[in-house]
């Protein structure tokens, strides 16, 4: 099929681990040729589109609404509801597919694009039909060479076979899907930054509210931005119906979710799990999932929903993968990414790898994020390097306060006698990059303060250098 591909065809990226569970979006993943049109058609491919075209658009839209397909990009907003938020009578409307996956810990959209690109294409077509969207832009992260090749090949084949373009399957439904690709900037994953980038600009988020992309988006027109996994659910949904979809998972979180579990577990991997019922304990310790902590070590902490999410402790292991419960417990599910730390982990150093990420990825539009992120990174770096002072810990929290005023969510801890502070938090920035630079520091400092103090104590114990530091901080009056 891939005759346009020059050079060696790369094998599937590893990571996905199947299991004896319902499969909605990963059903073709084991086939070596899962990305070809032949395999897709041989496994029920494009029959969701066919089913969709025999029904009125409003009817298809209702089916998706009834199924409550929660957005898989981070915010968890139901897709059917989002499609209904476009202003009446304003056309054309666009679909922008968010394939910019780059939240630390997240690995699923790339697999979906590499292994089953036609499923994504079919999902885009169903969304365009149901919501009356006239053109689709499929934005793939710049650093994903293989995903771009696979999706480009799939689109070329789908056009040739009449599944995309004018009069799809002989109907009056016509839509182009334009492959677009980025060039390396995490913040572009934020939907308004994605739109800016697609307009050819620096990828800086727009202020919202008042205007969300569904009202004023690409070229000022109503625009639906959906995540790759969200759209990949639609073909199955249209073939099997909303009742079958909601029969999996729970009422508030139906269907399945792709979750990547990485870090210090025995069997890191990407799993398609039943939404809402699978617990973190299942995922970390279950034999059909990660099978426990490496080397029989103890679990120290884990990040439950991508690098932006406040951390959880073993205390939270029995929570199910359900947005509201996880929010009440002080964190968020975000993009389906769990990062596990065992008892050998240097907590301040681990927090630094995330804070550095967000500080580095700040677009610079808001001062608290641009300046604050850099400060957080610098202060934490010197603490990790053993050069921190007592004042640095307060300073970290003070800078954090300027990004997120008031209390910040965190988990409950029996060991520390802490009760949970639930989501959400207040913020002084336009998007979540600023708060995300602070989140790992806040979690680490709240839940493992002793580890920070240990690093600082070590420093002040060295008599020769202790004096100049004390003198310097007294003279400088803090940073």
């Amino acid at each position, binding site marked *: 099929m891939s005759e346009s591909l020059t050079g060696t065809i790369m094998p599937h990226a590893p990571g996905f681990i199947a299991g004896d569970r319902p499969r909605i979006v990963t059903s073709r993943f084991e086939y070596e040729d899962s990305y070809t049109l032949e395999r897709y058609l041989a496994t029920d491919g494009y029959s969701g589109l066919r089913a969709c075209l025999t029904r009125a658009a409003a009817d298809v839209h209702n089916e998706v609404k009834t199924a409550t397909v929660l957005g898989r990009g981070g915010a968890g907003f139901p897709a059917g509801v989002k499609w209904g938020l476009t202003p009446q009578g304003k056309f054309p409307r666009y679909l922008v597919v968010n394939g910019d996956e780059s939240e630390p810990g997240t690995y699923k959209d790339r697999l979906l694009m590499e292994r089953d690109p036609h499923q994504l294409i079919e999902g885009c077509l169903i969304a365009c039909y149901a919501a009356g969207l006239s053109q689709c832009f499929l934005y793939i992260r710049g650093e994903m060479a293989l995903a771009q090749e696979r999706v480009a090949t799939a689109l070329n084949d789908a056009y040739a076979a009449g599944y995309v373009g004018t009069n799809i*399957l002989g109907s009056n439904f016509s839509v182009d899907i334009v492959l677009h690709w980025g060039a390396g900037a995490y913040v572009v994953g934020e939907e308004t930054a994605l739109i800016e980038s697609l307009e050819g600009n620096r990828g800086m988020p727009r202020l919202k509210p008042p205007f969300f992309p569904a009202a004023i988006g690409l070229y000022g027109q109503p625009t639906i931005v959906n995540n790759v996994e969200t759209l990949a659910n639609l073909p199955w949904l249209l073939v099997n119906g909303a009742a079958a979809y909601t029969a999996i998972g729970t009422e508030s979180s139906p269907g399945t979710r792709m979750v990547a579990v990485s870090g210090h577990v025995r069997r890191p991997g990407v799993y398609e799990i039943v939404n809402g019922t699978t617990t973190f304990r299942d995922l970390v310790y279950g034999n059909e999932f990660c099978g426990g902590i490496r080397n029989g070590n103890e679990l120290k902490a884990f990040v439950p929903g991508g690098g932006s999410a406040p951390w959880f402790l073993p205390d939270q292991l029995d929570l199910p993968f359900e947005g509201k419960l996880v929010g009440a417990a002080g964190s968020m599910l975000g993009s389906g990414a769990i990062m596990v730390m065992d008892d050998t982990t240097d907590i301040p150093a681990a927090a630094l*790898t995330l804070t550095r990420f967000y500080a580095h990825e700040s677009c610079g539009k808001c001062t608290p994020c641009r300046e604050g992120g850099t400060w957080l990174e610098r202060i934490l770096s010197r603490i990790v390097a053993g050069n921190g002072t007592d004042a640095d810990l307060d300073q970290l929290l003070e800078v954090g306060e300027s990004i997120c005023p008031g209390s910040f969510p965190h988990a409950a801890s029996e060991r520390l006698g802490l009760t949970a502070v639930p989501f959400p938090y207040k913020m002084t920035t336009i998007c979540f990059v600023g708060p995300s630079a602070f989140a790992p520091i806040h979690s680490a400092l709240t839940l493992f303060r002793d580890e920070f103090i240990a690093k600082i104590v070590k420093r002040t114990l060295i008599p020769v250098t202790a004096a100049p530091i004390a003198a310097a901080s007294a003279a400088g009056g803090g940073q």
Partner: protein
Amino acid sequence: MSRLTDANIKLAKEIIGRYPRARSAIIPLLHLAQEQHGHITNAAIAHIGELVGATSAEVLGTCTFYEMFKMEPVGKYLVNICGTMSCALLGSDELMHRAEHTLGIKAGSTTADGLFTLEHAECQAACTEAPCLQVNYRHRYRVTPDQLDALIVDLRAGNLDGEIPPHGTVARVRQHIPAGRAVGAVAPEDATDPPVWLSTGPSINAKTPK
């Protein structure tokens, strides 16, 4: 001279034609320029500006926001080692030290023979396969320091040329929309009525044969 070649101008026009606004093609065209020349030159910036109707300053402004665009020459192989949390937890520091030692350069620089540029990178969406790296945006998974050395030997010897094109080329497959099947760009001023299928009920008969 590093304006786009005639063949690439043709391709650029095809790409521009897919978007309701020409400026939307700036990033794809910058990639095209980088593919042609290995990095982005001022001449390419000016040329892209002419093609999409933007000033050089505007194109440059977009260009400098994105990390993949290099304003200076880089090695034939750009080696990006991920250092974000999942990879850091499983030894990315060690990998970076080995890379610096084997290549004899610090992260952020290029070997004297112009073959390798080494960079610290952020999460590459392969966190379960940590520690990982990319060579010209093609992943390598669960890399040990010794495997990294072997990879460098292979790249030097040209053993991976079929799999990893030189820096500048990302995807080796391009989208082509056949003229007969293209709907064409739908600009805000072009289509202010609802799309036809929204108002006409079912689009095909359920019994339409496959």
